[in-house]
């Protein structure tokens, strides 16, 4: 019955109580939402590349190799010779190997040369394959497949010609050898979205007439001639490797790292992603901090509401006292009220979060490539909600103690 009375009292002050609950609900939804985005971002980040057991490149740092080979950030300090690539490819442990060659660009997007096998082997978000939203995988030497962001940003469609620039942010373009867009990929939420993919041979072809970073004056081999040429590359940037048995990964990694003809580096993508996340992850702590402050603000708002309600509720407390309620019943009643408000707010916040997820999930996925899974609340989220409720009880002790003292002084004789 006391619980019913507490409820009744809350309902009687529906407007202010409702606002307080709404504030708590929003803050809880924000906090849990940030948590969702954070874990979603972490998972998406870790899902950038999957199915690849090793990434092989010239010797540098593991994070650096990951950054330029997968995220297309920064540049390779060195290349990997075709001979070394062949040696790795011929090792018995290797199930498949896909070379990638970077260095050129189209507008703000990187151009990557690779083999058609890339489209089968590159996996993201725990085993998803790349898919074409339009067109086909490159067929001709001068065919290009572009990522979803490239197509969206530059407004390209199938058949459009594109000219690749030499290097990055460069004014010298491979104008004589334009490409034709043959396919556009589905959005993946990975750096592939921002990549122009051509064949490995095409990268060689557009550099046939080039030497030391500049076109030989007056020389331009016609496309038909290029198509007949043997365009085996001298060097590539990196290679993605899959092994026959997972047990062989470490042995292969070690032998590549100890390869004597050339300093090479083989990394486990998962491990390197972890290392990278530790750098990126500092921002997540700040994000959690800020959203926790929002929850604290909402709770302080609730405390203020309870405080301001005390005066108008002296009569109510006096009635309780007259009926024989001890002052600590008054105290308990106020704490109970706060806990009720926080509990309703927390549950409502959880509801808001799920409603938001239902609506926002496809939008966020297509806009940011961030997949936020809709799952039942985790233990961690449960603890967060409990912590909010517990914090509300603690915070409400301050006005409750004041009410306790007031009801001791007033007794049952309040004349308003």
């Amino acid at each position: 019955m006391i619980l019913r009375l507490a409820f009744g009292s809350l309902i009687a002050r529906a407007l202010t109580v409702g606002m307080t609950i709404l504030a708590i609900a929003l803050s809880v939804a924000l906090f849990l939402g940030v948590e969702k985005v954070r874990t979603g971002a972490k998972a998406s980040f870790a899902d950038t590349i999957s199915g690849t057991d090793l990434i092989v490149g010239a010797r540098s740092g593991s994070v650096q190799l990951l950054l330029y080979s997968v995220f297309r950030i920064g540049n390779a300090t060195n290349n990997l010779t075709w001979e070394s690539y062949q040696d790795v490819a011929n090792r018995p442990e290797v199930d498949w190997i896909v070379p990638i060659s970077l260095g050129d660009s189209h507008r703000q997007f990187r151009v990557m040369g690779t083999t058609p096998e890339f489209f089968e082997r590159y996996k993201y978000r725990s085993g998803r394959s790349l898919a074409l939203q339009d067109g086909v995988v490159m067929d001709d030497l001068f065919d290009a497949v572009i990522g979803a962001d490239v197509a969206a940003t530059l407004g390209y469609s199938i058949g459009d010609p594109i000219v690749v620039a030499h290097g990055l942010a460069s004014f010298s373009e491979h104008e004589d050898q334009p490409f034709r867009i043959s396919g556009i990929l589905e959005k993946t939420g990975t750096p592939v979205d921002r990549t122009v993919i051509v064949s490995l041979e095409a990268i060689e072809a557009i550099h046939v007439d080039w030497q030391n970073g500049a076109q030989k004056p007056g020389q331009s081999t016609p496309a038909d001639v290029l198509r007949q040429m043997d365009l085996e590359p001298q060097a590539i940037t990196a290679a993605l490797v899959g092994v026959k048995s997972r047990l062989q990964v470490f042995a292969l990694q070690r032998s590549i790292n100890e390869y004597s003809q050339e300093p090479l580096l083989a990394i486990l993508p998962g491990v390197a992603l972890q290392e990278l996340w530790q750098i990126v992850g500092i921002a997540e702590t700040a994000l959690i901090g800020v959203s926790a402050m929002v929850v604290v603000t909402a709770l302080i708002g609730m405390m203020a509401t309870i405080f301001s309600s005390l005066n108008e509720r002296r009569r109510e407390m006096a009635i309780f006292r007259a009926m024989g309620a001890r002052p600590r019943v008054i105290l308990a009643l106020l704490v109970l009220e706060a806990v009720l408000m926080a509990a309703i707010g927390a549950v409502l916040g959880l509801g808001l979060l799920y409603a938001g997820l239902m609506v926002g999930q496809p939008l966020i996925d297509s806009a940011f490539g961030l997949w936020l899974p809709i799952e039942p609340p985790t233990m961690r989220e449960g603890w967060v909600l409990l912590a909010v409720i517990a914090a509300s009880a603690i915070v409400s002790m301050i006005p409750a103690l004041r009410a306790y003292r007031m009801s001791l002084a007033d007794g049952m004789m309040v004349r308003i």
Partner: protein
Amino acid sequence: MPDTAPILHLENARYRWPGRASFELHVPALSLARSETVLLLGESGSGKSTLLSLICGTITAQSGHVRIGDTDVASLSAGQRDSFRAEQIGLIFQQFNLLPFATVQDNILLPLQFAPNRRKRAQARQAEAVRLCRALGLPDDVMGVRAGTLSVGQQQRVAAARALIGTPPLIIADEPTSSLDAATQSTFLDLLFAQSRANDTSVLMVSHDARLADQFDRVIHMNHIATSVRSAA
């Protein structure tokens, strides 16, 4: 013998409010017999509220005795006094008696929450609440209604039902009829006394209105039983 012993007995009770503008109340002797109805007349400022607070145990006399039944109120701890009040005394105020957001039924049953013995005496609590409401002339369908929506007269009857439930030996009423018109006042008291006499409950009612005197067993004046001293400290 419990039946002959007074339900309320004050003897040389003295109380001085703390603070600079001090006010002291002295009650040499005041007694109420069981099932007696007494009207205590007094002007405002004559110490009525202080006297009621003493009887209800929200304050305790610095000297002398305040007994309810066999118990000296001053001998109890603050918490015990709260429980004791819940068990022994039904209270009716001038107005704003009820929790406006709660139903009539919850309002009536509220004191039982803090008084296990009264709760036992009331037995079938809800049926008893309905019976009291009916006896006090309230419509049957009133139980589920929020108390705040009732008229003042109806609210005072609900307050009376709340004071009567579980048959406490003493009912203290602080100007319960002052917000009612003359005809309603008299009906209200008739209905209240019918119930209190049936339960052997004593009623001490405080008022400044002498016109109600006829309906009571005994009328006393604040001036005759108590002296109050206002000293500019």
